[in-house]
């Protein structure tokens, strides 16, 4: 009997201890991993963990937007592999397509203390929350220990944070947003390829012809990703000089431009230029309509070049399987202009960069690896590979070698050569719940269930209350 009691007591004790131990280890991990203001404790807690990594292998958790249909998804994979081979370190890659879900995931990771060590992320308002929380390290602070950090970049082109005007993100490659065209549909509908002087009125006339020929003129999922149309519709009622000014309210001049922008999208919807299922389709579905010859125009970013090329390959991961004849049918041009915005005034810039988190910086084992990783990915040799047909922030940008470019990349370079201005995206400054009424609410706006002015006013009120 006594023996049984002792056994029971021992088992119970063991269970309680195991639970307590679990709690302790997670607590230690938290102390090491998330308490940015306790660097002295962090190394102690981590001291035992790297024992297994004594061979020089450090595991870095990295999140980027180089995934899915992004043009640089493969470049990124290759670069990571090369860095791992060179340093003996390992990367746990948690990259994902740059959409609202991704942004939410990153923000939540920071808020719950499970942020990555390095991230390639937007340097506009989307990064405000974790910069305010002190969870990333400024470039100046890094330079105190690593003086050459990001020294190959043009300082003027490194965007400062909206929070404290400090620079945190080392830019790698710029972006642009323009209009991709499926020329096969244009030919079938008897529409000429749009050029540098393309206007909204011409665009509507072309859409009418395309619709009459049995195709969807515009590939866009307004219920899922209305972002690009949102940006250009507003831009079309402003000018490059005023586009980045966020209105005080829906009634002022800029506010009215936003309202008119929303109403312009509503007009296109009512004219039947978006796909029939634009309110219920995902962005992937409407993109497939574009690549499969069912929709003519697609406004999207420079990263979509890779997506289109991938759609022209029988194996999206093997460039050798590219169907060049199919790719030839795609082109890229300017977004139809209106008012003070010329078609050649595009949206673009250096809106993303590599951040090093406080968590990685305070970990003596990871600090070197994190700096090394960012320096490798932003080196003079690597940046041109990522920048391709876009801009970069390099001080000494080398000549672009177009010999390995595909036909769409060359068309993109030619298109970019004709741009008259490149303005940042105002939605990068207008992030968070203020977007909800006009982004998630776009279907209600275009169907007339919500008045555009009310939706804009609601968003601006949320913005000014932030």
């Amino acid at each position, binding site marked *: *009997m006594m023996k*049984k*009691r002792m056994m*029971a*007591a021992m*088992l*119970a*004790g063991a*269970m*309680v201890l*195991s*639970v307590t131990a679990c709690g302790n280890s997670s607590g230690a991990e938290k102390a090491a991993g998330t308490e940015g203001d306790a660097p002295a404790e962090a190394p102690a807690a981590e001291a035992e963990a790297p024992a297994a990594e004594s061979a020089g292998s450090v595991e870095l958790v990295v999140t980027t937007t180089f995934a899915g249909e992004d043009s640089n998804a493969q470049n990124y994979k290759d670069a990571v592999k090369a860095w791992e081979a060179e340093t003996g370190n390992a990367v746990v890659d948690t990259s994902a397509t740059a959409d*609202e*879900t991704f942004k*939410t995931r990153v*923000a*939540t990771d*920071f*808020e*719950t*203390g499970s942020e990555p060590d390095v991230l390639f992320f937007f340097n506009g308002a989307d990064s405000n*929350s974790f910069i305010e929380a002190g969870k990333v390290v400024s470039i100046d602070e890094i330079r105190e220990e690593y003086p050459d950090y990001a020294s190959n970049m043009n300082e003027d082109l490194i965007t400062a944070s909206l929070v404290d005007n400090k620079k945190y993100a080392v830019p790698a490659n710029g972006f642009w947003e323009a209009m991709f065209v499926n020329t096969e549909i244009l030919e079938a509908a008897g529409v000429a390829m749009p050029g540098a002087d393309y206007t909204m009125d011409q665009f509507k006339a072309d859409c009418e012809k395309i619709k009459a020929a049995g195709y969807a003129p515009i590939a866009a999922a307004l*219920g*899922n990703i209305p972002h690009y149309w949102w940006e250009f519709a507003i831009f079309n009622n402003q000018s490059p000089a005023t586009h980045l000014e966020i209105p005080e309210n829906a009634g002022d001049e800029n506010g009215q431009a936003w309202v008119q922008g929303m109403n312009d999208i509503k007009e296109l919807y009512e004219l039947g230029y978006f796909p*029939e*299922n634009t*309110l*219920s*389709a*995902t962005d992937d*579905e409407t993109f*497939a*309509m574009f690549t*499969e010859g*069912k929709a003519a125009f697609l406004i999207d970013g420079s990263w979509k070049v890779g997506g289109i090329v991938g759609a022209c390959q029988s194996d999206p991961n093997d460039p050798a399987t590219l169907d060049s004849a199919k790719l030839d049918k795609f082109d890229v041009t300017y977004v139809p202009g209106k008012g003070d915005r010329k078609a050649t005034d595009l949206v673009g810039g250096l809106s993303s960069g590599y951040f090093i988190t406080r968590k990685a910086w305070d970990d003596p084992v990871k600090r070197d690896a994190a700096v090394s990783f960012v320096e490798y990915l932003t080196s003079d040799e690597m940046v041109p590979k990522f920048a391709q047909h876009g801009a970069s922030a390099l001080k000494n940008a080398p000549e672009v070698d177009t010999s390995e470019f595909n036909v769409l990349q060359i068309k993109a370079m030619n298109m970019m050569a004709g741009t008259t201005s490149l303005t940042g995206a105002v939605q990068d400054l207008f992030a*968070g*719940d203020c977007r*909800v009424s006009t982004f*998630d609410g776009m*279907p*209600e706006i275009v*169907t007339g*269930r919500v008045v555009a002015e009310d939706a804009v006013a609601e968003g601006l009120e949320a913005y000014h209350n932030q």
Partner: protein
Amino acid sequence: MGANIYRNKKPALAFLLPAFLFMVLFLYYPFFKTIINSFMHLKQLGATATEFNAPWYTNYEEMLHDPHVWTSVKNTIIMMLVTLVGQVGIAIVLALMVDNIGRGKQIFRTLYFFPIVISATALGLMFNLIFLRDKGMVNQVLEMLGKQDLTDWKAEGIALVTMMAPVMWQYVGFYFVILVTGLNNISDELYEAATIDGATALQRVRYISVPMLHNVICTCSVLAVTGALKVFDLPWVMFPKGMPLKTTFLTGTYMYYQTMETKNVDYGAALAVLIVVLGVVLAKVVNAVFREKDY
């Protein structure tokens, strides 16, 4: 002495303690914290709420005027009815049919149960392809049958059906297995006696199987109704953000949308409280309606 060992409850308590602590830490503490947060001003996940809303019941007042709350409650109640009729109802029919076949019962058990082991997210992605407007499986079949135009299975009028069909399909097997087990527990002697008395197969089902399954059906119904309140992943994958036009929100997906997408964390907490209240009330109603019998 032998019987005394069962009188001493202390060792049992020691074994229960870790699980109790676990529940307190990961269930009851977050639950009460959520109730408190629903009265606070909290617009960021992971942040600590420092002040109460003014007035403190703001979120609950807002809920009354929020049309999407009513849409999500309405859809959730429809989902409950669908699970009751579609999952438990179909499972009863299948179980009775399988119980009447001689061989191959085990095969049907496995086949019907199989969807349960597939992750709901994977099923959501699969059904996305099945219901795709362009080149989706359903539309291709309809095209082969001569239908000219494509049907948008995710359009406003039909989206709820498209969302609920896979949910229903996924869980039929779960209730089927419970019901088949219940049928196996009915003594063969009852059926034999009924057969000798001249009862037909339908009469045996009507007067023996169904009454004897009453308690099992009650359990399944309670599980189905409470389970419908928790359905989340499959609808979210197929209809993110209540697409189209926020008409497909369930209480769970709307709470997630408010908390994770719009960062309206305190409002999300209030919605979570609403879900708990709904769950308790509906479980009581279902328990009252499907009262178990003592035999």
